[in-house]
């Protein structure tokens, strides 16, 4: 199943960014391809609306949530149209977070641009960094050695673990599961501290570089291994308790359902898509991921999304431990990149905690001359807007948190 996640024009010719079977490809001038989300992606309107557009009727009003409101963590607005409790139609306004990043990054040296890229969205910093680096490396003809790639995989999975822990803790908090939420927050904090020990940054910033990565010493790898084992052990106990809590599960079950057909139509990727039953993951197409188990669920509700994320925490820990085991066997890390043929453009992508991040860049005189970014949150907000239709106000927090998306990631 092909999923359209980006549309851009180059030299007057339209290019589609398409994801299929764990691989991203560029389709040039694809006149024979039709995608329902074409207009949505092409326009990139900062107001994202649900397909249902019911805004009139007796008592119907716009319950505006944001842009600076308790409960909305970033500057953005949810316009919830309702006649009381029932959400009839949703508009998400991303404009408050728009930073014109493509203009800010264009014309800059890739190393300098990397700092901007890492700052697009704090909790996806490493995924953005890796996707951008891969695009630059692709363009500049830099071939990455297996050690660097392994350490990047460790970083991506560490980012996945702390993001998923955060999402599940927020879901527990929304369901007033204070004890579970507190324990998960503790694990979240522990995972951030582990990031700090491993990479010198709680959010894994400045760890990845163009064509290389900071090499941690053996002690850091051992600390990471022990830390991950402890976090996973604690999380497993908590997760088993969580699944046994009827109150918690009831709040998530059948809440903010996004059907597989709608998810594909919108361009959703990541855990949200996998929670609808689609086995699609960019890691699937990366040979460095050995014996990857992709978790899927079929209901497409907040519970399915949480379950997928929880199972991905276990899978990520397994991947990290595998990579540490391999890295610990290597005595002298060789991280010198190999040179390949240079190209004017480059494609780089990565499976972030919430879905596919793609960078398509143009380089001229070793500087970024043009840039196109596709992020999961942009599609995620369209998914949230549609999944909330028919739900009630009290489901709002579950819907938002279960998608694990950010205004900063969506509004570039």
């Amino acid at each position: 199943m092909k999923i359209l996640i980006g549309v851009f024009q180059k030299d007057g010719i339209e290019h589609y960014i398409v994801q299929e079977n764990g691989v991203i490809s560029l389709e040039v001038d694809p006149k024979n391809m039709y995608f329902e989300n074409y207009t949505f992606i092409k326009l990139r309107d900062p107001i994202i609306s649900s397909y249902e557009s019911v805004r009139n009727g007796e008592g119907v009003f716009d319950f505006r949530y944001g842009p600076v409101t308790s409960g909305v963590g970033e500057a953005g607005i949810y316009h919830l149209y309702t006649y009381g409790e029932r959400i009839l139609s949703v508009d998400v306004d991303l404009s408050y977070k728009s930073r014109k990043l493509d203009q800010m990054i264009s014309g800059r040296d890739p190393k300098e641009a990397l700092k901007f890229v890492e700052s697009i969205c704090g909790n996806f910093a490493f995924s953005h960094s890796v996707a951008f680096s891969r695009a630059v490396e692709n363009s500049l003809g830099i071939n990455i050695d297996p050690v660097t790639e392994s350490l990047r995989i460790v970083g991506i999975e560490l980012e996945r673990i702390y993001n998923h822990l955060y999402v599940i803790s927020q879901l527990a908090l929304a369901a007033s599961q204070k004890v579970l939420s507190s324990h998960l927050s503790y694990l979240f904090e522990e995972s951030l501290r582990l990031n700090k020990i491993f990479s010198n940054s709680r959010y894994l910033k400045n760890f990845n570089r163009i064509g290389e990565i900071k090499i941690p010493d053996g002690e850091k790898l051992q600390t990471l291994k022990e830390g991950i084992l402890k976090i996973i052990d604690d999380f497993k106990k908590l997760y088993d308790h969580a699944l046994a809590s009827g109150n918690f599960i009831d709040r998530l079950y059948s809440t903010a359902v996004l059907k597989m057909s709608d998810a594909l139509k919108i361009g959703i990727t990541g855990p949200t898509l996998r929670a609808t039953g689609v086995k699609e993951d960019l890691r699937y197409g990366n040979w460095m991921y050995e014996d990857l188990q992709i978790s899927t669920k079929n209901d497409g509700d907040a519970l399915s999304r949480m379950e997928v994320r929880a199972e991905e925490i276990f899978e990520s820990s397994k991947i990290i431990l595998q990579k540490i085991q391999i890295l610990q066997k290597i005595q002298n890390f060789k991280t010198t990149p190999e040179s390949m043929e240079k190209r004017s453009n480059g494609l780089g992508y990565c499976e972030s905690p919430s879905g596919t991040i793609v960078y398509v860049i143009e380089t001229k005189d070793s500087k970024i001359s043009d840039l196109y970014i596709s992020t999961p949150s942009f599609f995620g907000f369209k998914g949230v807007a549609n999944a909330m239709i028919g739900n009630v106000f009290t489901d709002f927090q579950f819907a938002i948190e279960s998608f694990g998306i950010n205004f900063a990631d969506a509004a570039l």
Partner: protein
Amino acid sequence: MSMIFAYISFTLYILGILFSFKREASYLLSFLGSIFVFVTGIIGTFYPFTLGEIELLPKIYMSMDVNHLSGIFMTIAATSWIAISIYSVDYGKFYSKDMGLWLNLSMIGMLTIMMAKDGLTFITGWEVMTVSSYLLILKSKGSFKEAFEFLAFGELSTVALIIAFASIFLKNGNFSLVQNSGTALFLIATTFAFAVKMGIFPFHTWLIGAHVKAPSNVSALLSAPLTLMGVYGIFMALSVMPNLYLYNFEWWGILAVGFGAVSAFWGALQALAAKQLKTLPAYSTIENNGMILSAIGISVIAIGDPNLQILSAFATLTAIILTISHTFSKSLLFLSIGHAKEALNEENIDDLRGSWSAVGKIPALGIILSGLSFSAFPPLIGFVGEWMLLETFFQSYKLVNVGEKIVTTFSGIFVALAIGMAAFSMVKLTGYTALGFDHGKKSKNMPNMAMKIAEIFLITFVVAPGIFAPFVVKYLGYGIFTSGLFGVPKPFLIISSIPVFGVLSPTFFTIVFSILFIFPLFFYLSRRKKVRKIDPWNGGLSLKENEYFSAPAYSAILEIVLKKIYITKEKISDYEAHIEVVDVVNLFYKGLKSWILKIEKIISQILMNGNLNVYIIYILIAFTVIFFILR
């Protein structure tokens, strides 16, 4: 001497009818007539008197008198009539001149009911009231269906009254309404007739349509004095029964408590979901009359037990206080809402926002105070009445019979829920209509001085009887329920039983509250100029017009959660959505109507099919049957 006031009242009302071609004169005459009724009521409360009688046939008289009971009810009704008459001086200009005629006539009808000493006079007054009220409802365009429904239920009451008075005639050989003249059939039939007029569940549907469609002064008349006639009727019917202390009428009390509580609950529940301006107060009338009936029910249950005479008396007092509260507060509510509705030309609660700034402080204050009274906000009269009702139910543990205990306990739960829901619905009504943001609306230019005077008059009667409730209790002849305790001097404390069970002093509450309020008020006033006023934080942006929380949304959660009771339908099309709720009793009557129409069609096809032979056979059969019945 006392009877002169009563005659003057009738004369003034008749003059009001004759001068109906001159609007202001007609309403001023009804105002003056009502003043005299008020005075007559006060005199009659303490010094009962007779107005004389007319002999129509041997042993068949039409007679009138004013006694303690009718005196109280005349005073209550006249208070509402005075306000309605003043209000109509301005408001009546929006309607045809004959409105004054029917308004005066309906008052004559109600006055006749309260003074009637026999069945014929009573039923004459009843019909005059019903027909004139029907014609008053018709003053609004497009109100025929609702007016006809009112008339149909009104005539149903009349039929029941005819049966009741016929049973008296069979027993006593005359229609006199004196003690011991009543029969069980009389009590059943009159209770049915008066319950219909009070809008007791499930006979309340007429009340909603009529109140909503009628002009606002007529809505006030229908909701307060007209349903008051039902309450008076119940008291009258019980007063002519053989001694309730000696004979067992507990079954009646149990039924009254049950139906009253269910009615209170149903009225409050439906009021919550109301979207139209006058639907909510109309359902509130059903709730209040339900509470009144349940209090009367407990009184009748308790009176059969020699040890519970105090409880019975307190329950009767409760019913009267609730009646006073309902009549004054509901009149004020309908008149104030009518004022704002007319000024802004709106029909829905959601559309009539901010009448405080858009229409004026007096009508808005009228809406707020009446709403607070129905929300049992101290020290208003509604608070006193509802406190007394709960005290009455709390004391139902004293009842001996297990069945009575079960019924009163569950009824108490229904009533308590009703009181809570009433507060919720009144917050919705007053919060939006009086206090909401006006969105820049401007009221139309219209004469409103008389309307404001009427509203101020009723505001006084909602506030003062609450604050001085112990004196009202004494005035009504229940001084035993006033006392002095805990430093509160006699008679400023209302007690709910002897020995003391529960106590309340609205007067002292007002004093203490005022003292506590004076200091913050003084502090605020002294620093008012230094206070910086800002809009509340709304996400950092000013609220747009379509971002204000709507009135239907306020109660939507209950409509969705209680969808089995409301039969809630969420109607969502491509671009429009709304919630629909129905009163299930309406569905019953709709089904009944459809069923009757089907039968009517079948009968008409058989008997009235244009075939001459069939007509002749029908006439012959009818003649034969009547001949055998009357031979």
